[in-house]
């Protein structure tokens, strides 16, 4: 696989939200407005990129200094290792966000610390970064991160438009529009994700 293909796959063919159905919990929770979606997407992409880079380097480092047998035993502590790396980056994001983007950090709230347990990140660390070289891991993280962000924005745009009559906080329909509250409540997230999944599957089926 080429580098470009590694990057592109995260956006459409292996989109973490729509194709791999990973990390749906934050997607359901923060896709109520586009600004939330962008903030969450950026935070996740940063954590994904940093953890993929560090984990890929760590594995490379151990493969250089340890014997075959040593590398096998390192395998036993790989999950705690990954978690420490991921949790550190998430904590960094949390601190930096509340220092420099207080409004965003407040509206995302608990979902920033919860990136630690976002399965996209551990999934990519375990399934990709620990087995591939640095450059490929970086491309994979970028693709997956951007794919996640785009998916979030796609869902959030739909929900914000119908649920509060706005796009990026700009009122579109004027004062008389009665927002469909359901769309920004949890059921709305399920409906929109289901709708998108249906459309994607329909497109795939038509191609065949």
């Amino acid at each position: 696989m080429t580098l470009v293909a590694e990057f592109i796959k995260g956006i459409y063919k292996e989109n973490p939200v729509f194709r791999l159905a990973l990390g749906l919990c934050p997607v359901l929770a923060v896709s109520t407005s586009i600004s939330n979606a962008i903030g969450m997407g950026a935070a996740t992409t940063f954590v994904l990129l940093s953890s993929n880079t560090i984990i890929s380097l760590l594995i490379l480092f151990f493969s250089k200094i340890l014997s075959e047998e040593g590398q096998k035993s390192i395998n036993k502590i790989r999950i705690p290792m990954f978690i420490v790396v991921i949790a550190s980056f998430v904590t960094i994001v949390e601190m930096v966000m509340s220092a420099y983007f207080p409004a965003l950090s407040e509206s995302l709230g608990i979902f920033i610390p919860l990136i630690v347990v976002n399965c996209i990140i551990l999934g990519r660390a375990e399934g990709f970064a620990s087995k591939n070289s640095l450059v490929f891991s970086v491309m994979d993280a970028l693709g997956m991160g951007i794919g996640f962000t785009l998916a979030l924005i796609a869902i959030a745009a739909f929900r914000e438009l119908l649920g509060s009559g706005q796009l990026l906080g700009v009122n579109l329909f004027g004062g008389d529009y009665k927002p469909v509250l359901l769309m920004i409540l949890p059921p709305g997230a399920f409906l929109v994700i289901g709708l998108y999944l249906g459309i994607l599957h329909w497109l795939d089926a038509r191609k065949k």
Partner: protein
Amino acid sequence: MHNVIRLSIILAFITLIAAFVLAEIYNITKPRIEEQKLAKTQEALKYVLPDAQSLPPVKKKIPVKDGKGNTLYEREEIVYYKAYSDQQEQNLIGYAFKAYGTGYSSNIETMVGIDTIGRITHIRIISQKETPGLGALAENSEPFKGKKWSTQQFINKQIDDLKVDKDGGTIVSITGATITSRAITNSIKAKMQELTGELDIPIQETVEED
């Protein structure tokens, strides 16, 4: 055995680096985070009492006790703010305080400004995490037209007016979020009642409702 020690050392080393990096970043961001919090309080104070030039906090020492009742140390807490219209702190125009209420899904923190005779000058929701589109609308401060919630409807209200319409009062609650509206209204009322004794506010005759 040899393996266990080796793995422990590797893991300890990784966590050590992580701890070091985190400590550094904590040190960098901490003053900034505190600054942001303070700025938010100041902004809310300015909003509820726009005429105030000086807002000295009134602090109270709260003893922190251990199990046997011995005082361990004293914790300082801001009870309310005094608002003066001049820098020399001569002309008292009112007070400001924070009210805390438990809403539908979060604690709601509200900054309230009152004048010297106990009328609310304005309120401002400082923090809340209520349902988006329902309870979260509590922050809305559009001009109050009479049938929709707005924080502006609190202007000029006194203790006894603080009751939501569902409880037979005059505060128009947020459609679909009575709990949030009630939490805000009642928390302000409770705090005002608590402070009436401490502030020099003439206590009004409570009119018994029938």
